[in-house]
Protein backbone atom coordinates (compact mmCIF):
# COMPACT_ATOMS: atom_id res chain seq x y z
CA UNK A 1 0.00 0.00 0.00
CA UNK A 2 1.58 3.22 -1.11
CA UNK A 3 0.47 6.75 -0.39
CA UNK A 4 1.53 8.70 -3.48
CA UNK A 5 -1.91 9.99 -4.31
CA UNK A 6 -2.69 11.38 -0.87
CA UNK A 7 0.79 12.84 -0.36
CA UNK A 8 1.70 14.14 -3.83
CA UNK A 9 0.67 17.70 -3.00
CA UNK A 10 2.22 17.77 0.46
CA UNK A 11 5.68 16.36 -0.22
CA UNK A 12 8.31 17.72 -2.60
CA UNK A 13 8.19 15.24 -5.48
CA UNK A 14 8.16 15.21 -9.28
CA UNK A 15 6.45 13.00 -11.83
CA UNK A 16 7.66 11.57 -15.16
CA UNK A 17 7.18 14.03 -18.00
CA UNK A 18 8.40 14.63 -21.54
CA UNK A 19 9.90 18.09 -21.87
CA UNK A 20 11.03 18.36 -18.23
CA UNK A 21 13.36 21.10 -19.42
CA UNK A 22 10.89 22.61 -21.82
CA UNK A 23 10.96 22.40 -25.62
CA UNK A 24 14.66 21.66 -25.90
CA UNK A 25 14.45 21.98 -29.68
CA UNK A 26 14.82 25.69 -29.10
CA UNK A 27 18.39 25.07 -27.92
CA UNK A 28 19.53 24.20 -31.44
CA UNK A 29 22.09 26.19 -33.32
CA UNK A 30 22.31 23.57 -36.06
CA UNK A 31 19.56 21.28 -37.28
CA UNK A 32 20.13 17.70 -38.52
CA UNK A 33 18.50 17.08 -41.91
CA UNK A 34 18.26 13.47 -43.15
CA UNK A 35 18.63 12.84 -46.86
CA UNK A 36 16.17 9.96 -47.23
CA UNK A 37 17.56 9.03 -50.66
CA UNK A 38 21.00 8.43 -49.22
CA UNK A 39 19.64 6.76 -46.06
CA UNK A 40 20.18 3.00 -45.88
CA UNK A 41 17.78 2.43 -42.95
CA UNK A 42 20.64 0.96 -40.89
CA UNK A 43 19.12 2.38 -37.64
CA UNK A 44 22.48 3.56 -36.30
CA UNK A 45 21.25 7.15 -35.91
CA UNK A 46 18.16 5.90 -34.04
CA UNK A 47 20.29 3.77 -31.69
CA UNK A 48 23.01 6.32 -31.14
CA UNK A 49 20.89 9.44 -30.69
CA UNK A 50 21.71 10.36 -27.09
CA UNK A 51 18.40 12.14 -26.63
CA UNK A 52 15.90 9.54 -27.86
CA UNK A 53 14.56 12.04 -30.40
CA UNK A 54 14.93 9.90 -33.51
CA UNK A 55 12.18 7.35 -34.02
CA UNK A 56 11.70 4.68 -36.66
CA UNK A 57 8.81 5.34 -39.00
CA UNK A 58 6.53 2.54 -40.13
CA UNK A 59 8.33 2.59 -43.49
CA UNK A 60 11.63 2.03 -41.71
CA UNK A 61 13.10 5.50 -42.19
CA UNK A 62 14.26 7.60 -39.23
CA UNK A 63 12.25 10.68 -38.26
CA UNK A 64 13.59 13.39 -35.97
CA UNK A 65 11.43 15.05 -33.31
CA UNK A 66 12.49 18.64 -33.84
CA UNK A 67 10.54 19.81 -30.78
CA UNK A 68 13.19 18.17 -28.63
CA UNK A 69 16.27 17.57 -30.83
CA UNK A 70 19.10 19.60 -29.29
CA UNK A 71 21.19 19.64 -32.47
CA UNK A 72 24.25 17.97 -30.93
CA UNK A 73 25.28 16.35 -34.21
CA UNK A 74 25.94 12.82 -32.95
CA UNK A 75 23.56 11.38 -35.57
CA UNK A 76 25.38 13.24 -38.31
CA UNK A 77 28.76 11.98 -37.06
CA UNK A 78 27.77 8.34 -36.72
CA UNK A 79 25.80 7.95 -39.97
CA UNK A 80 27.95 5.56 -42.00
CA UNK A 81 26.80 6.99 -45.37
CA UNK A 82 26.85 10.65 -44.35
CA UNK A 83 23.14 11.02 -45.02
CA UNK A 84 22.62 13.52 -42.20
CA UNK A 85 23.77 17.09 -42.60
CA UNK A 86 23.92 19.74 -39.88
CA UNK A 87 22.36 22.93 -41.22
CA UNK A 88 22.54 26.29 -39.44
CA UNK A 89 19.26 27.26 -37.80
CA UNK A 90 19.73 30.94 -38.40
CA UNK A 91 20.98 32.30 -41.67
CA UNK A 92 23.72 34.82 -40.90
Amino acid at each position, binding site marked *: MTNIDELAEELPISKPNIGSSGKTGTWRVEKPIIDLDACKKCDICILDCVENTIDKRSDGYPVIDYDYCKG*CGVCSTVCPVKAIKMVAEVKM
Partner: protein
Amino acid sequence: MNFLKGNAACPGCPIPKELDAILDVYGKKTVIVVPASCSTVIMGDTVLGMPSPVNVVHSPFAAAASIASGLSAAMKFRKDDANILVWAGDGSTSDIGFAAVSGAAERNEDITYVCYDNEAYMNTGIQRSSLTPYGAWTTTTPSHKHEFKKPLPLIIAMHNVPYVATASISYLADFKAKFSKAKSMKGFRYIHLLSPCPPGWKFDAGLTMNIGKLAVETGMWPLYEIENGVFKLSSISKPYIDKAKRKPLEEYLRLQDRFSGLSSEELANMQAYIDEMWNYIAKVNDSKLTP
Protein backbone atom coordinates in the same frame (compact mmCIF):
# COMPACT_ATOMS: atom_id res chain seq x y z
CA MET B 1 12.81 1.90 -21.36
CA ASN B 2 12.72 5.38 -22.72
CA PHE B 3 14.46 8.06 -20.77
CA LEU B 4 12.12 10.88 -21.68
CA LYS B 5 13.25 13.49 -24.18
CA GLY B 6 13.29 17.21 -23.57
CA ASN B 7 15.49 16.86 -20.50
CA ALA B 8 18.17 19.21 -19.22
CA ALA B 9 21.23 17.24 -20.40
CA CYS B 10 23.69 19.19 -22.52
CA PRO B 11 23.59 18.49 -26.28
CA GLY B 12 25.70 15.43 -26.89
CA CYS B 13 25.69 14.33 -23.25
CA PRO B 14 25.64 10.52 -23.06
CA ILE B 15 23.76 10.39 -19.73
CA PRO B 16 20.23 10.10 -21.16
CA LYS B 17 21.38 7.30 -23.44
CA GLU B 18 23.28 5.50 -20.67
CA LEU B 19 20.21 5.53 -18.42
CA ASP B 20 18.01 4.49 -21.32
CA ALA B 21 20.19 1.44 -21.95
CA ILE B 22 20.37 0.56 -18.25
CA LEU B 23 16.61 0.76 -17.82
CA ASP B 24 16.16 -1.38 -20.94
CA VAL B 25 17.93 -4.11 -19.00
CA TYR B 26 16.78 -3.34 -15.44
CA GLY B 27 13.14 -2.56 -16.16
CA LYS B 28 10.47 -0.67 -14.26
CA LYS B 29 11.03 -2.28 -10.87
CA THR B 30 14.09 -0.14 -10.42
CA VAL B 31 14.74 2.67 -7.97
CA ILE B 32 17.54 5.03 -8.99
CA VAL B 33 19.37 6.90 -6.23
CA VAL B 34 20.85 10.12 -7.59
CA PRO B 35 23.29 12.16 -5.49
CA ALA B 36 24.24 15.74 -6.32
CA SER B 37 25.59 15.73 -9.86
CA CYS B 38 24.70 16.69 -13.42
CA SER B 39 21.98 14.09 -13.19
CA THR B 40 20.30 15.98 -10.37
CA VAL B 41 19.67 18.81 -12.81
CA ILE B 42 18.86 16.43 -15.66
CA MET B 43 16.19 14.85 -13.47
CA GLY B 44 14.12 18.02 -13.71
CA ASP B 45 12.13 19.76 -11.00
CA THR B 46 8.92 19.64 -9.00
CA VAL B 47 6.97 21.63 -11.59
CA LEU B 48 7.98 20.41 -15.04
CA GLY B 49 8.56 16.85 -13.89
CA MET B 50 11.35 14.34 -14.45
CA PRO B 51 12.60 12.48 -17.53
CA SER B 52 12.99 9.20 -15.65
CA PRO B 53 10.21 6.66 -16.17
CA VAL B 54 11.13 4.94 -12.88
CA ASN B 55 11.34 6.04 -9.25
CA VAL B 56 14.21 8.38 -8.46
CA VAL B 57 15.41 9.12 -4.94
CA HIS B 58 17.49 12.26 -4.77
CA SER B 59 20.34 12.19 -2.30
CA PRO B 60 22.78 14.55 -0.64
CA PHE B 61 26.20 14.39 -2.26
CA ALA B 62 27.86 11.89 0.07
CA ALA B 63 24.85 9.76 0.97
CA ALA B 64 23.80 7.82 -2.13
CA ALA B 65 25.34 4.46 -1.27
CA SER B 66 23.83 4.64 2.21
CA ILE B 67 20.36 5.64 1.04
CA ALA B 68 20.55 2.73 -1.38
CA SER B 69 21.51 0.41 1.49
CA GLY B 70 18.40 1.47 3.38
CA LEU B 71 16.18 1.08 0.33
CA SER B 72 17.57 -2.39 -0.22
CA ALA B 73 16.82 -3.37 3.39
CA ALA B 74 13.26 -2.05 3.14
CA MET B 75 12.63 -3.91 -0.12
CA LYS B 76 13.67 -7.14 1.54
CA PHE B 77 11.01 -6.55 4.20
CA ARG B 78 8.44 -5.80 1.53
CA LYS B 79 9.56 -9.00 -0.18
CA ASP B 80 9.87 -6.90 -3.31
CA ASP B 81 12.62 -7.97 -5.67
CA ALA B 82 13.27 -4.46 -6.89
CA ASN B 83 16.58 -3.29 -8.31
CA ILE B 84 18.21 -0.58 -6.25
CA LEU B 85 20.62 1.29 -8.47
CA VAL B 86 22.89 4.17 -7.54
CA TRP B 87 23.60 6.56 -10.42
CA ALA B 88 26.47 8.68 -9.18
CA GLY B 89 29.15 10.81 -10.76
CA ASP B 90 32.86 10.55 -10.18
CA GLY B 91 32.79 13.32 -7.58
CA SER B 92 30.28 11.59 -5.36
CA THR B 93 31.81 8.15 -5.82
CA SER B 94 35.51 8.82 -5.60
CA ASP B 95 35.66 11.85 -3.34
CA ILE B 96 32.95 13.11 -1.04
CA GLY B 97 30.95 9.88 -0.96
CA PHE B 98 33.90 7.50 -0.95
CA ALA B 99 33.47 6.40 2.65
CA ALA B 100 29.84 5.51 2.05
CA VAL B 101 30.69 3.61 -1.15
CA SER B 102 33.44 1.71 0.63
CA GLY B 103 31.10 0.95 3.54
CA ALA B 104 28.35 -0.35 1.27
CA ALA B 105 30.88 -2.47 -0.66
CA GLU B 106 32.36 -3.87 2.53
CA ARG B 107 28.90 -4.84 3.78
CA ASN B 108 28.19 -6.35 0.34
CA GLU B 109 24.92 -4.42 0.16
CA ASP B 110 22.55 -5.83 -2.45
CA ILE B 111 22.69 -2.86 -4.81
CA THR B 112 24.04 -1.97 -8.25
CA TYR B 113 26.35 1.00 -7.98
CA VAL B 114 26.98 2.78 -11.26
CA CYS B 115 29.59 5.49 -11.43
CA TYR B 116 29.20 7.59 -14.55
CA ASP B 117 32.64 9.09 -14.81
CA ASN B 118 32.84 12.36 -16.72
CA GLU B 119 36.21 12.91 -15.08
CA ALA B 120 35.54 16.11 -13.11
CA TYR B 121 32.93 17.91 -11.02
CA MET B 122 31.03 18.88 -14.11
CA ASN B 123 27.78 20.10 -12.59
CA THR B 124 29.55 22.91 -10.77
CA GLY B 125 31.52 23.92 -13.86
CA ILE B 126 34.42 21.56 -14.46
CA GLN B 127 36.52 21.29 -11.30
CA ARG B 128 38.93 18.39 -10.85
CA SER B 129 38.03 15.22 -9.04
CA SER B 130 40.27 12.32 -8.08
CA LEU B 131 39.06 10.65 -11.27
CA THR B 132 40.22 13.48 -13.52
CA PRO B 133 42.98 12.01 -15.69
CA TYR B 134 46.58 13.16 -15.66
CA GLY B 135 47.10 16.06 -18.05
CA ALA B 136 43.53 17.31 -18.10
CA TRP B 137 42.64 20.97 -17.85
CA THR B 138 39.95 21.86 -15.33
CA THR B 139 39.16 25.17 -13.68
CA THR B 140 41.04 24.04 -10.58
CA THR B 141 43.93 22.54 -12.56
CA PRO B 142 44.38 25.24 -15.18
CA SER B 143 47.97 24.14 -15.81
CA HIS B 144 46.84 20.52 -16.14
CA LYS B 145 46.35 17.92 -13.44
CA HIS B 146 49.43 16.05 -12.37
CA GLU B 147 47.89 13.31 -10.26
CA PHE B 148 46.85 10.12 -12.00
CA LYS B 149 43.31 8.80 -12.01
CA LYS B 150 42.40 6.95 -8.80
CA PRO B 151 41.97 3.29 -9.87
CA LEU B 152 38.47 3.05 -8.47
CA PRO B 153 37.25 -0.21 -10.06
CA LEU B 154 40.31 -2.02 -8.65
CA ILE B 155 39.81 -0.44 -5.22
CA ILE B 156 36.18 -1.59 -5.15
CA ALA B 157 37.19 -5.06 -6.35
CA MET B 158 39.58 -5.36 -3.41
CA HIS B 159 36.52 -5.08 -1.13
CA ASN B 160 35.71 -8.63 -2.24
CA VAL B 161 32.47 -7.73 -3.97
CA PRO B 162 30.94 -10.19 -6.42
CA TYR B 163 31.05 -8.00 -9.55
CA VAL B 164 33.00 -5.04 -10.89
CA ALA B 165 33.02 -3.92 -14.53
CA THR B 166 34.04 -1.03 -16.74
CA ALA B 167 31.86 -0.17 -19.71
CA SER B 168 31.19 2.48 -22.34
CA ILE B 169 28.02 3.52 -24.12
CA SER B 170 30.02 3.49 -27.36
CA TYR B 171 29.94 -0.29 -27.10
CA LEU B 172 26.25 -0.87 -26.50
CA ALA B 173 26.15 -4.65 -26.71
CA ASP B 174 29.01 -5.03 -24.22
CA PHE B 175 27.37 -2.36 -22.01
CA LYS B 176 24.03 -4.15 -21.92
CA ALA B 177 25.61 -7.57 -21.44
CA LYS B 178 27.40 -6.33 -18.33
CA PHE B 179 24.22 -4.84 -16.89
CA SER B 180 22.37 -8.05 -17.65
CA LYS B 181 24.98 -10.00 -15.77
CA ALA B 182 24.87 -7.55 -12.87
CA LYS B 183 21.08 -7.71 -12.72
CA SER B 184 21.15 -11.47 -12.34
CA MET B 185 23.54 -11.31 -9.38
CA LYS B 186 23.14 -10.47 -5.71
CA GLY B 187 25.39 -8.38 -3.53
CA PHE B 188 27.39 -5.25 -4.31
CA ARG B 189 27.76 -4.83 -8.06
CA TYR B 190 29.84 -1.94 -9.33
CA ILE B 191 29.90 -0.70 -12.91
CA HIS B 192 32.12 2.19 -13.93
CA LEU B 193 31.22 4.01 -17.13
CA LEU B 194 33.45 6.39 -19.02
CA SER B 195 30.98 9.16 -19.79
CA PRO B 196 32.43 11.70 -22.27
CA CYS B 197 31.35 15.27 -21.54
CA PRO B 198 31.36 17.76 -24.47
CA PRO B 199 31.58 20.99 -22.47
CA GLY B 200 33.92 19.58 -19.81
CA TRP B 201 36.34 17.78 -22.09
CA LYS B 202 35.94 20.47 -24.68
CA PHE B 203 35.03 18.53 -27.77
CA ASP B 204 32.39 19.05 -30.44
CA ALA B 205 29.05 17.73 -29.16
CA GLY B 206 28.60 15.47 -32.19
CA LEU B 207 31.72 13.45 -31.32
CA THR B 208 30.53 11.84 -28.07
CA MET B 209 30.26 8.29 -29.41
CA ASN B 210 33.59 8.61 -31.26
CA ILE B 211 35.42 9.87 -28.18
CA GLY B 212 34.11 6.91 -26.22
CA LYS B 213 35.39 4.57 -28.89
CA LEU B 214 38.81 6.19 -29.07
CA ALA B 215 39.20 5.95 -25.32
CA VAL B 216 38.91 2.19 -25.64
CA GLU B 217 40.94 1.92 -28.87
CA THR B 218 43.90 3.87 -27.49
CA GLY B 219 43.89 1.73 -24.36
CA MET B 220 43.01 4.71 -22.18
CA TRP B 221 39.77 3.01 -21.05
CA PRO B 222 40.15 -0.76 -20.75
CA LEU B 223 36.90 -2.72 -20.77
CA TYR B 224 36.97 -5.50 -18.22
CA GLU B 225 35.10 -7.39 -15.52
CA ILE B 226 36.24 -8.59 -12.13
CA GLU B 227 33.90 -11.40 -11.15
CA ASN B 228 34.40 -12.83 -7.66
CA GLY B 229 37.89 -11.37 -7.72
CA VAL B 230 38.93 -12.80 -11.08
CA PHE B 231 40.06 -10.20 -13.62
CA LYS B 232 38.63 -10.76 -17.09
CA LEU B 233 39.47 -8.46 -19.96
CA SER B 234 36.41 -7.98 -22.19
CA SER B 235 36.74 -9.32 -25.73
CA ILE B 236 36.61 -5.80 -27.21
CA SER B 237 39.69 -4.75 -25.26
CA LYS B 238 41.66 -7.99 -25.66
CA PRO B 239 43.51 -6.83 -28.81
CA TYR B 240 44.92 -3.85 -26.95
CA ILE B 241 47.18 -5.96 -24.78
CA ASP B 242 49.38 -5.73 -27.86
CA LYS B 243 50.74 -2.19 -27.82
CA ALA B 244 50.98 -2.18 -31.61
CA LYS B 245 47.22 -2.65 -31.83
CA ARG B 246 46.48 0.34 -29.56
CA LYS B 247 45.70 3.50 -31.55
CA PRO B 248 48.12 6.37 -30.92
CA LEU B 249 47.13 8.31 -27.82
CA GLU B 250 47.33 11.45 -29.91
CA GLU B 251 44.16 10.48 -31.75
CA TYR B 252 42.21 10.59 -28.49
CA LEU B 253 43.86 13.70 -27.09
CA ARG B 254 43.73 16.00 -30.11
CA LEU B 255 39.93 15.98 -30.23
CA GLN B 256 39.67 17.32 -26.67
CA ASP B 257 40.73 20.85 -25.84
CA ARG B 258 41.21 19.89 -22.19
CA PHE B 259 44.39 18.16 -23.36
CA SER B 260 45.75 20.99 -25.48
CA GLY B 261 49.11 22.53 -24.68
CA LEU B 262 50.63 19.47 -23.02
CA SER B 263 54.39 19.42 -22.78
CA SER B 264 56.37 16.55 -24.21
CA GLU B 265 57.15 15.44 -20.64
CA GLU B 266 53.46 15.38 -19.75
CA LEU B 267 52.66 13.44 -22.92
CA ALA B 268 55.41 10.97 -22.10
CA ASN B 269 53.96 10.48 -18.62
CA MET B 270 50.52 9.84 -20.05
CA GLN B 271 51.91 7.32 -22.51
CA ALA B 272 53.85 5.61 -19.72
CA TYR B 273 50.67 5.44 -17.63
CA ILE B 274 48.86 3.59 -20.40
CA ASP B 275 51.78 1.26 -21.02
CA GLU B 276 52.11 0.43 -17.31
CA MET B 277 48.38 -0.06 -16.94
CA TRP B 278 48.40 -2.58 -19.79
CA ASN B 279 51.47 -4.37 -18.42
CA TYR B 280 49.47 -4.77 -15.23
CA ILE B 281 46.40 -5.98 -17.11
CA ALA B 282 48.43 -8.50 -19.07
CA LYS B 283 49.82 -9.85 -15.80
CA VAL B 284 46.50 -10.13 -13.93
CA ASN B 285 44.15 -11.09 -16.73
CA ASP B 286 42.35 -14.36 -15.92
CA SER B 287 43.82 -14.45 -12.44
CA LYS B 288 42.37 -13.74 -9.01
CA LEU B 289 43.16 -10.26 -7.71
CA THR B 290 41.79 -10.69 -4.21
CA PRO B 291 43.70 -12.80 -1.66
